[in-house]
């Protein structure tokens, strides 16, 4: 059980102008996170496989000036079981590749970050690196990727290339492989220096090959030579995110991520988790780097708190059982949620990633009620002040690890 820290470690409330900026994101999954969400009167269950649905939903999130959306994905049909398929016919089943949804919506948006989920256990780091780099190109610098491991046997059988061993070391191995994977995609993003393309008509050379780099990664699970076929994307390094519930995942976050989604139960546990992630960062030699923690919250929002509770009860009733989330469930008004988010921010989180129970209702409550409430408190941005996701998150554009001459961060593309 997480121990509350000494009160002396709790930062005193500061005036708005001195508070670090609050960051907000929304996690998108089908018709919303509640299994009965698709049956709500305003839901669009027949449109979940259409571009128009995702364009509308992400436009709504962008209306709320959110930092980014994440898009859930996996390499199997959705299931209420953690370990394999179910035989349900009363929940949303079937989905689209999250990276391609993000790419489809990128040209239609201008401010919001796009973070699709990618399973790293069965996919090729070379392909995913160029896919996310390309997402960054098509969104002019608003791409990220949430990496996820798969311990499911049914997903392994979809690829038929490896047997996942049973045993306690499996999760450790999967997360170690994920760390190697992120190392490879990051090296590939850096495998082209920003000014590698020279178009020198006099010598006939299109690129300066001294600025293209083999990454020569050799690890336990794969070797990748490089360089990428895709030039370094606008952000240099798109944002890498991971969801973490426990130590092995905190270690991955500390070593590899820019953004980590965590599931505190209250501000004390939030503080404890921050400590664990910071320790993991330090042991990975990244103590000085910004890693943002977002607290995940499952949200049922209405201007009247009773209504939100009634809605949750109705959804649970329709589903046949209460929905059990790995994240804390919040039921109440946008103003009450704003209080909770600010409380968690005080505990050291950068902000929250909200999982709307239903779409569009709870999403619109976020973009049209929660955000204006936070803006009235001078706690959230009034407009997008950066065109890149790293910019929104206050992350510098990183220097290229292979650059022979260090480029100052200010020299980054605007």
């Amino acid at each position, binding site marked *: 059980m997480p121990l509350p820290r000494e009160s002396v470690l709790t930062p005193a409330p500061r005036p708005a102008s001195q508070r670090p900026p609050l960051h907000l994101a929304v996690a998108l999954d089908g018709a919303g996170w509640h299994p*009965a969400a*698709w*049956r709500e009167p305003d*839901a669009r*269950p*027949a449109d979940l*496989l259409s*571009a128009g649905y995702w364009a509308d939903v992400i436009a709504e999130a962008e209306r709320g000036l959110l930092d980014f959306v994440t898009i859930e994905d996996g*390499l199997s*049909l959705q299931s209420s079981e953690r370990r394999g*398929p179910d*035989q349900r*016919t*009363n929940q*949303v089943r*079937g*989905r*689209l*590749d999250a990276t*391609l949804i993000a*790419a*489809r*919506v*990128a*040209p*239609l948006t201008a401010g919001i970050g796009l973070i699709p989920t990618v399973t790293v256990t*069965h*996919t*090729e780091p*070379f392909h995913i690196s160029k*896919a996310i*780099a*390309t997402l960054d*190109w*098509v969104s*002019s610098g608003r791409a990220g990727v949430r990496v996820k491991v798969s311990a499911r046997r*049914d*997903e392994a*059988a*979809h*690829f*038929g*290339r490896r047997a996942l061993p049973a045993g306690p070391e499996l999760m450790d191995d999967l997360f170690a492989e994920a760390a190697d994977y992120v190392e490879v995609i990051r090296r590939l993003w850096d495998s082209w220096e920003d000014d590698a*393309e020279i*178009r020198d008509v006099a*010598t*006939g*050379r*299109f*690129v300066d*090959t001294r600025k*293209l780099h083999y990454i020569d990664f050799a690890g336990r699970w*794969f*070797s*990748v*030579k490089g360089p990428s*076929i*895709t*030039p370094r994307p606008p952000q240099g390094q798109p944002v890498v995110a991971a969801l973490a519930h426990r130590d092995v995942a905190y270690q991955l976050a500390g070593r590899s991520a820019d953004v980590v989604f965590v599931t505190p139960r209250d501000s004390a546990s939030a503080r404890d988790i921050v400590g664990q992630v910071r320790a993991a960062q330090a042991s990975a030699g990244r103590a000085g780097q910004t890693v943002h923690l977002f607290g995940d919250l499952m949200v049922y929002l209405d201007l009247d708190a009773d209504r939100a509770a009634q809605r949750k009860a109705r959804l649970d009733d*329709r589903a046949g059982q209460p929905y059990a989330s790995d994240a804390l469930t919040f039921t109440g008004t946008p103003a009450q949620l704003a209080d909770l988010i600010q409380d968690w921010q005080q505990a050291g989180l950068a902000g929250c990633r909200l999982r709307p129970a239903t779409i569009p209702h709870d999403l619109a409550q976020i973009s049209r009620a929660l955000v204006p409430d936070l803006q009235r408190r001078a706690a959230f941005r009034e407009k997008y002040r950066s065109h890149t996701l790293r910019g929104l998150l206050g992350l510098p554009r990183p220097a290229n690890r292979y650059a022979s001459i260090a480029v100052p961060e200010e020299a980054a593309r605007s």
Partner: protein
Amino acid sequence: MTKPVKQVHLAAHFPGVNNTTVWSDPRAGSHIEFGSFAHFARTAERAKFDFLFLAEGLRLREQNGEIYDLDVVGRPDTFTILAALAAVTDKLGLAGTINSTFNEPYEVARQFASLDHLSGGRAAWNVVTSWDAFTGENFRRGGFLPQDQRYDRARTFLATAFELFDSWRGDQIVADAASGVFLRDAGPGRFAHADRHFDIAGQFDVPRSPQGGPVIFQAGDSDEGREFAAAEADAIFSRHSTLAAGQAFYADVKGRLGNYGRSPDELKILPAATFVLASTDAEARELAHEVRLQQVSPATAIAFAEQVWNRDLSAYDPDGPLPDIDPDPGENTTARGRASVRMYRDPIATARDWRAKAEAGNLSLRELIIGVTARQSFIGSPAAVAATINDYVQADASDGFILVPHITPGGLDEFADTVVPLLQERGVFRTEYSGSTLREHLGLPRRAARARAGGTS
């Protein structure tokens, strides 16, 4: 009996990473920024083209142990860029090359099914297979595939992918909020496939897409490639430069379709072609020569010769005679990751042939390379080019062309503005899209779920 007038099919190849693309021209724009792709796609759609095509290569090419730097280098991820282009076009087909060696069917099937959904039925897949260990160095499995298994792998990959596409019938999603029935029955997407390449089973997670799966393209020219296309493909990319060669290829491939219970209309033959336009034919010929000089710079001429000679020829003068030494026999270690090298199956004979041509025409090395590497090209006034394209199609040398502009991204604009209206006036090219899917643009029948092949249950 008069033959019915055929409709021409046109597609646009986004300029690639080879010397056809003239990056040194002052009009040449970015090859990676989305604005270039959007411009190109919008032009193709404005001209009512059937589709846009994007090639792929999974390792940067090398020559003499160095990354090859004379052509455009760098390109986007195929699926990601096509999905983004679906947002800036409404009707244009979106075709891309995806390798069947360095991918797995489950992942590729979900990407193509997703692309087909997100584009409203406009996805197409050019199935290629590599076997080289050089490319394999970028992937988990490395270079695992023997060369002689490449079509076997491609065929099996495709069949497996279609088992996944067909694992959803298309009527299973009910999504009836009142009754709470989302799926008509439990377990859609079930599949099981076992053969010597793939042993996979489970449940596919992308419901049936508008076209039932992507349109299938194939580019091989060998006997095995033609047979593969006759059995599996909806369109074939060829590279036959004369009318007679085109007609022979056309007749050969169309003649094979009957063996697979298919009619000749079910496979379109679309050669790739470059073009140079000017107000008169004479001006166009002059301009075309300038373009060839840009495409084959002195350094490029040496590089091409090295690919045949399989040795460093940097000491030779591109404006002088061909090397008097013979090519280095054996595996080509000079140029790597370049498909064209495989065309020179007998380098010593190729060198002998080139020397004879150069001596006969009194050509320098560079002039020789300009001649022997020329591709199908339409050179002339818009009226002449429109007439030639139509002639080729009506004479059954092709069903249309995949046009390869040499300037990014504006190289298609002039063709769209000048040649397309003339084809439309002749009544051989659409003035509006009549359908919304790529299959409809190509006049292909609706794809029914394939019969389950052997090796499946």
